[in-house]
């Protein structure tokens, strides 16, 4: 029973973790809390639902949803980043929030406000390990999540663009002086963040089989908390934070009831901010590794 709760918590946590990675990317590089992320998450989830309903296979729906996330995130960059230069650091908050309102209401116009049921193109299979029941799509999703984060970590540590991203995170001005083209690297950061958000949205749609125009909000708040708990700007911290929150949430539901979830999750966040604001794994981009 306890092990089953842990598994459920980790599954939920993997969705939070991916959203947390998206938040931590823009936060770590640009010190920008990007509120459009829940919108992109929702669009990816709802687009998956719409495409599956329209008869498209998963092989088409999945890449299409990810591409949509990338394009939307790039558009967000175009509309918010120019305001960040020279402006107050919380100004782009307004634009990114306006984009969230825009995406949510466009979805509302296109698909209505009802919660929609996602019909899976495959029979829901589950694997048993002794008493443990684990959904196969969830397992695949978890593996996918770890895979993309690992790829991101490698990219940041080993490639030219990764080095450029880390240098901007360290000090954008110095990076510019040393010949890093900030204007070219920043859109890449947004696109990567958009893809991560979209993966999370698709995973959510497939795992929990329900989507709605406002599905992103609650998940994004947990994602932000996960980012802080793991350590802002730290990718593996975002993963750890997401899993911690997923487990805390399922445990709170199990022992104290669904209504107390927010007290535990956000109480934990508040306590952590007081005691260790740099998070469990410490802040700093990609763990500050050179």
């Amino acid at each position: 029973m306890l092990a089953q709760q842990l598994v459920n918590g980790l599954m939920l946590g993997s969705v939070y973790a991916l959203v947390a990675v998206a938040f931590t990317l823009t936060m770590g590089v640009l010190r920008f809390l990007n509120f459009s992320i829940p919108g992109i998450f929702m669009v990816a989830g709802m687009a998956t639902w719409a495409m599956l309903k329209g008869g498209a296979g998963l092989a088409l729906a999945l890449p299409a949803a990810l591409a949509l996330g990338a394009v939307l995130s790039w558009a967000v960059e175009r509309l918010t980043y120019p305001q960040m230069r020279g402006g107050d650091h919380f100004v782009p908050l307004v634009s990114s929030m306006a984009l969230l309102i825009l995406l949510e209401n466009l979805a509302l116009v296109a698909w209505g406000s009802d919660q929609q049921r996602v019909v899976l193109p495959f029979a829901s299979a589950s694997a048993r390990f002794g008493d443990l029941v684990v959904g196969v799509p969830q397992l695949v999703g978890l593996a996918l999540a770890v895979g993309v984060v690992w790829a991101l970590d490698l990219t940041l540590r080993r490639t030219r663009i990764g080095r450029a991203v880390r240098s901007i995170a360290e000090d954008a001005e110095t990076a510019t002086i040393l010949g890093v083209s900030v204007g070219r690297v920043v859109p890449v950061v947004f696109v990567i963040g958009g893809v991560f958000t979209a993966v999370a949205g698709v995973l959510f749609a497939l795992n929990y089989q329900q989507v709605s125009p406002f599905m992103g909000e609650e998940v994004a708040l947990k994602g932000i908390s996960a980012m802080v708990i793991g350590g802002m700007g730290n990718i593996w911290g975002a993963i750890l934070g997401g899993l911690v929150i997923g487990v805390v949430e399922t445990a709170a539901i199990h022992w104290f009831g669904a209504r107390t979830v927010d007290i535990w999750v956000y109480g934990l966040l508040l306590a952590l901010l007081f005691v260790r604001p740099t998070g469990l794994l410490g802040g700093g981009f990609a763990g500050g590794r050179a």
Partner: protein
Amino acid sequence: MSGYLEGVLVVLAINVILAYAAFLPIVAGQLNLGIAGFMATGAYLSAYLTNAHGWLAIPAALAATALTALLALVVAFPILRTRGIYLALATFAFGQVVAATILNLNVVGGASGYPVAAHLGFPAIAAAAAAVFAAVYLLFHTRFGISVTAVSDDELVADQMGLSVRWLQAAAFTIGAGVAGLAGALHAHHFSYIEAQHFNVLLSIYVVLYVLLGGTQTIYGPLLGAAVFTLLPEVLRGSAQWRYVIFACLILALMTWRPQGVVTRSLLRRLLEWRRPAPEAAT
């Protein structure tokens, strides 16, 4: 006055009060994303005092304002140990914990909401909004306003000039929270029903957006921001489905046009010069 117009004006007045609740900490360099939590505290305290102890609405609202400020003062010191985005997230977490705690408090109805018997009409709420504006105006024409701005401009220098940075920050945070509590109490007594779910983080974020859109440099920014956010969706009511889509596009356009907020110091100066030609222009 028609019922519709009065309804819109009540919401406007409450939103203006909320905007100043967010504005006070923002000028001190604190992004408070827990406004909804303080608003909920004020709303439930005032409702409880009238419902359970037979207080009248106005004294209850004032007491709730004071108690909310007291709560804020208690949490100010641990919260203000954090700074920047960490402070914003700490206030966010605090607001979430407050709303979730109320959701589990059965003495005030828990998840099923809390009906409020004592009613306050438009005149009282409008008077409260005017009083809050007047208080902020006076506050920013005293040393306090200048000191708070100095702290947010450069904390180190402000400290060296002998300003008590910690107390100024705590004061801005506490007064802002008290004002949010007042807005909550007025909300409770006007709409006669409150539920914890209403006071969510999106409400807090919206209130901060009023201020950022209006502009943080002058005390007129929050007034304009609250008015835009309240009235624009009403004006767009004609296109029911698309109104928030249009609204979002207009906000985006506005922020691209004026990233510092609509009302800035230089804009005000130009407006004043336009009314009263500057001496060098007269010669």
